């Protein structure tokens, strides 16, 4: 039963990731794309947590942690990367 | 004790480069010790290998099929010898050429020993994945060296070189992956026995590996990155790149074809490679003939000369094997001499347009002599090393009845004579204007004589071929 719930949740999240790609592709603004990256990042973190339990691999929680840290970095890098030059 | 030799050949230059890096300023004389010591090690290795048994080092001591082994057999030792001899000459040449003060000097004296160690590592490797790493190592040492000619001028060439080299090595890696899936080991010595035939993955893996190496080796359809990179680099670097770095890729092709990939390759594939080689000879020579810049002439000549080595694959008999390898040696020495000599002309003229060469025979007689002598070997005239190599290839084509390769050999030689004499003719023509309009410095004795010494060696290779060919031995596996 719990396995079923976990599987279903994983599947739902990966489908959501796919849906989020619409914003990655459609934009229209650069900010939309980076927003979509953020959502993908959070969804991935959620998926990693679920999979950590489902596959009994606690190390995936570390991966989730690393993802969270680098998601913030990407946002920073994006703003730095797209800011107009002085 | 001989087991230590291959390891030292990798570690000594590597540590020297690291030390140079940490030190933060150029110490040209230390590299002279390193290249001298490197030559000494190779000579010791030569003595050890001469008995016929390869020298093998097991890194980490975990044994087959897991650990990485270094192995020096006849072929590898000859390439190491070529590298070591050229390293001594080029290190000497680079003292006046790079000096010791600028930051670029530090970068050169850091990268050059690292490249030397990487080349040694590549020649010694007996492991498919380790070869991938050494290929990348060689590439990433070579490209920054190209940039030392001045980033502004060379960045386009360097970028193109990098893109092609990366793609080539990843395609190679794809082949390695498929082969590992089939054979379960990466050890070159175990692969032929472990590789099952009759599957799709095997030949596909071989095709990917060969394609990747061809890209790295700038063989005809993939040659487009070479001329700009080799022509744009500083002369000492061009010599290293043309004589050793691309040759390393062809060396791998020879080694894998007769070893690890032997159960997977076919006659048709050999003919195809021979066709590529012959087209490279004709196309490269023709392009070299048409160039208007001296270093581009020499760079396109490399495209052509690499093609000769590919003529081994369709014939695959001992004469072809020895001819191809000997061509690698002869071309390596001669091409290094050509690039160093060209570098001297460039140093004096401040530019390398062929037109500017008119009437420079007086101040640059020694360098022009070097250019001419090296040219003799490139053209394949007796008694040079180039002649010996082409003679062996010719013999092979007659032995196997594949006479059509003879046409490529002859045409390539004629075209080579064309582009070499074109340069020399211009240089010895008296110009209408007096020569003093050029204010460039005359290259020093060291620069002139290292080039000449290499050119003489290129000629001499024709006279001392017997012991070297003995060391190389017959084609592995007795031919197909």
């Amino acid at each position: 039963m719990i396995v079923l719930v976990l599987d279903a949740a994983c599947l739902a999240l990966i489908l959501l990731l796919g849906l989020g790609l619409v914003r990655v592709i459609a934009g229209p603004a650069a900010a939309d794309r980076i927003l979509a990256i953020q959502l993908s990042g959070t969804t991935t973190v959620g998926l990693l947590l679920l999979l950590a339990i489902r596959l009994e691999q606690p190390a995936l929680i570390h991966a989730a942690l690393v993802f969270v840290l680098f998601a913030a970095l990407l946002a920073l890098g994006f703003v730095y990367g797209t800011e107009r030059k002085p | 004790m001989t087991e230590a030799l291959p390891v030292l050949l990798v570690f000594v230059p590597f540590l020297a480069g690291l030390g140079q890096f940490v030190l933060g300023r150029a110490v040209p004389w230390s590299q002279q010790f390193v290249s001298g010591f490197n030559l000494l090690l190779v000579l010791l290795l030569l003595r050890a290998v001469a008995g016929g048994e390869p020298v093998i080092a097991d890194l980490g001591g975990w044994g087959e099929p897991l650990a990485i082994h270094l192995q020096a057999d006849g072929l590898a030792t000859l390439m190491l010898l070529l590298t070591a001899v050229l390293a001594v000459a080029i290190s000497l040449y680079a003292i006046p050429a790079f000096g010791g003060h600028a930051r670029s000097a530090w970068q050169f004296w850091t990268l050059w020993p690292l490249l030397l160690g990487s080349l040694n590592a590549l020649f010694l490797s007996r492991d498919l994945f380790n070869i991938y790493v050494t290929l990348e190592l060689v590439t990433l040492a070579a490209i920054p060296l190209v940039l030392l000619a001045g980033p502004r001028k060379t960045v386009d060439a360097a970028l193109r070189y990098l893109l092609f080299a990366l793609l080539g090595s990843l395609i190679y890696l794809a082949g390695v992956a498929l082969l590992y899936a089939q054979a379960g080991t990466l050890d070159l010595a175990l692969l032929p026995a472990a590789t099952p035939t009759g599957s799709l993955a095997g030949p596909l893996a071989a095709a990917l590996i060969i394609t990747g190496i061809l890209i790295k080796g700038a063989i005809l359809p993939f040659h487009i990155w070479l001329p700009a990179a080799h022509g744009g680099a500083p002369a000492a670097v061009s010599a290293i790149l043309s004589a050793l770095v691309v040759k390393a890729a062809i060396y791998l092709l020879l080694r894998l074809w007769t070893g690890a990939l032997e159960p997977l390759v076919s006659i048709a594939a050999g003919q195809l490679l021979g066709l590529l080689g012959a087209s490279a000879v004709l196309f490269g020579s023709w392009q070299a003939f048409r160039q208007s810049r001296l270093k581009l002439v020499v760079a396109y000549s490399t495209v052509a000369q690499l093609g000769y080595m590919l003529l081994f694959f369709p014939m695959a008999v001992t004469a072809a094997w020895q001819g191809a390898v000997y061509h690698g040696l002869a071309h390596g020495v001669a091409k290094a001499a050509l690039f160093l000599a060209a570098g001297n002309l460039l140093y004096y003229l401040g530019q390398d347009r062929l037109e500017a060469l008119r009437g420079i025979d007086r101040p640059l007689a020694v360098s022009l002599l070097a250019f001419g002598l090296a040219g003799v070997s490139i053209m394949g005239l007796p008694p040079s090393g180039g002649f010996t190599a082409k003679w062996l290839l010719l013999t092979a084509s007659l032995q196997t009845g594949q006479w059509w390769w003879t046409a490529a050999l002859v045409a390539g030689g004629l075209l080579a004579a064309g582009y070499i004499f074109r340069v020399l003719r211009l240089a010895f023509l008296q110009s209408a204007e007096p020569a003093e309009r050029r204010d460039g410095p005359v290259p020093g004795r060291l620069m002139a004589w290292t080039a000449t010494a290499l050119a003489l060696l290129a000629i001499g290779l024709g006279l001392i071929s017997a012991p070297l060919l003995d060391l190389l031995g017959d084609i592995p596996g007795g031919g197909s």
Partner: protein
Amino acid sequence: MSGIDPFALAAAGLMAFGLYGFCVCRHPLRRLLAINLVGNGVFLALILIARRLPDGPDPVPHAMVLTGIVIAVSATAFGLALIRRQARPEDDGND
């Protein structure tokens, strides 16, 4: 026809898309991305191959991929530095 691994398709597809991009695209940054696609495809293939051991995944391809990732990233970073330099040819760096 049953049971072709979706990841095998993905690995093959990534390599093919990468090669296609390398041939078709002209901007060096795109070509660099294309090369990284090829790399990712190769890495995926290696990891698929690693699953063929009975007790636990084969660590050798895993180590190969880790090495490959670091090499790919270093080379890509170098390539990006070259691209930046190419985009601004006017000022000369340290010579």
